[in-house]
């Protein structure tokens, strides 16, 4: 059988087999990595469902955004900087076009600034002032956004409107330290714990839904690629054996069945 396998025809097919096995192995590894990326998505969903933590326990000022903490439920305690509030957009919520109201919160524990998306407005003619004094904001954490062109014809609230929450720009405008993260505010309460009602015309922005991946699908694909690679090897072996059995030149070969 070995002598048959060394024929040029079977050696050529063996080279092809090696290529197929290498390709199937790589494709399987690729699917395995996709499955693991989806594992990260699951981790993000867990972060969202985790017990709320104080923002300073999750991220430090200037620290790069910790990806697995995206959507993490956080509580931020501080004071809103009403004079630095601005609109971001245009954005869509529930099929309507409007703007996010972003107000910097000076976090008491660290003195650093945290951008807070207080809500969504469709009417930009009347500014929505943030609550004065110490506030406690419950919401979910999100990483900064990619740069986007500022919208035109939108009033300053009181700062000029922006296209996105881009910390590379905000770091120039805000004094002191800042967090590379922002919060989608869900509820606000005063320093004494009394709930602050949502201002008229303002609608809370729900945190982005984490698209849950089906890890097992990609894991199954990985397995299927490897099985195909193994099957190609089996095909080669079977064909060489058939040939060896048929070959009259190898009559009397001790390896023949």
């Amino acid at each position, binding site marked *: 059988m070995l002598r048959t396998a060394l024929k040029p025809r079977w050696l050529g*097919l063996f080279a092809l087999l090696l290529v197929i096995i290498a390709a199937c192995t790589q494709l399987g590894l690729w699917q395995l990595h996709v499955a693991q990326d989806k594992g990260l998505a699951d981790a993000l969903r867990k972060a969202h469902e985790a017990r709320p933590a104080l923002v300073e326990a999750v991220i430090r000022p200037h620290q790069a955004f910790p990806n697995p903490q995206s959507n993490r439920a956080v509580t931020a305690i501080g004071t809103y900087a009403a004079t630095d509030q601005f609109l971001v957009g245009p954005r869509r919520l529930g099929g309507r076009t409007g703007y996010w109201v972003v107000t910097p919160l000076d976090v008491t524990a660290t003195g650093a600034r945290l951008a807070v998306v207080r809500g969504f407005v469709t009417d930009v003619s009347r500014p929505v002032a943030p609550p004065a004094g110490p506030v406690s904001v419950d919401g979910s954490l999100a990483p900064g956004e990619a740069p986007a062109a500022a919208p035109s014809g939108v009033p300053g609230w009181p700062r000029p409107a922006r296209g996105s929450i881009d910390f590379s720009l905000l770091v120039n405008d805000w004094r002191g330290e800042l967090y590379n993260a922002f919060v989608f505010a869900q509820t606000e309460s005063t320093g004494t714990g009394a709930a602050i009602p949502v201002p008229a015309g303002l609608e809370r922005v729900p945190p982005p839904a984490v*698209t849950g*991946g*089906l890890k*097992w*699908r990609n894991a*199954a*694909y990985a397995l*299927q690629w490897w*099985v*195909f690679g193994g*099957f190609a090897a*089996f*095909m080669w072996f*079977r*064909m060489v054996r*058939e040939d060896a059995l048929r070959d009259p030149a190898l009559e009397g070969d001790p390896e023949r069945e």
Partner: protein
Amino acid sequence: MSDIKDPVSTRKALRFFKVMAVLSGLALFVLIGIIVVNGGFGKGGASAVWSPIHGLIYFVYVVSIANLGFKVGWSLPKMVLIMLTGFVPLLPFWAERRFAGETEARLAAGRR
């Protein structure tokens, strides 16, 4: 091509091949239907559930082709060609008619 050596096991392999050709043809239709309804690849949902199952059915189809092919002495290019029919809608049904018919004719000729 030489006569079929083992008609009994060939008939079994032939039945297996015919069933898998029809199954993989249907599985491909279901997959395409789901993708059309979902409006594209990678949308998750039903296609996420069905595509690995389709992959598995296709693999068994490939095995059934090899199983029959070795018994009736098909060449490697011929087997690979039949395996590739599993990627094209309707073609597995054609492959089933064409190659199962051919094998049946040879089996019938061998009996005489």
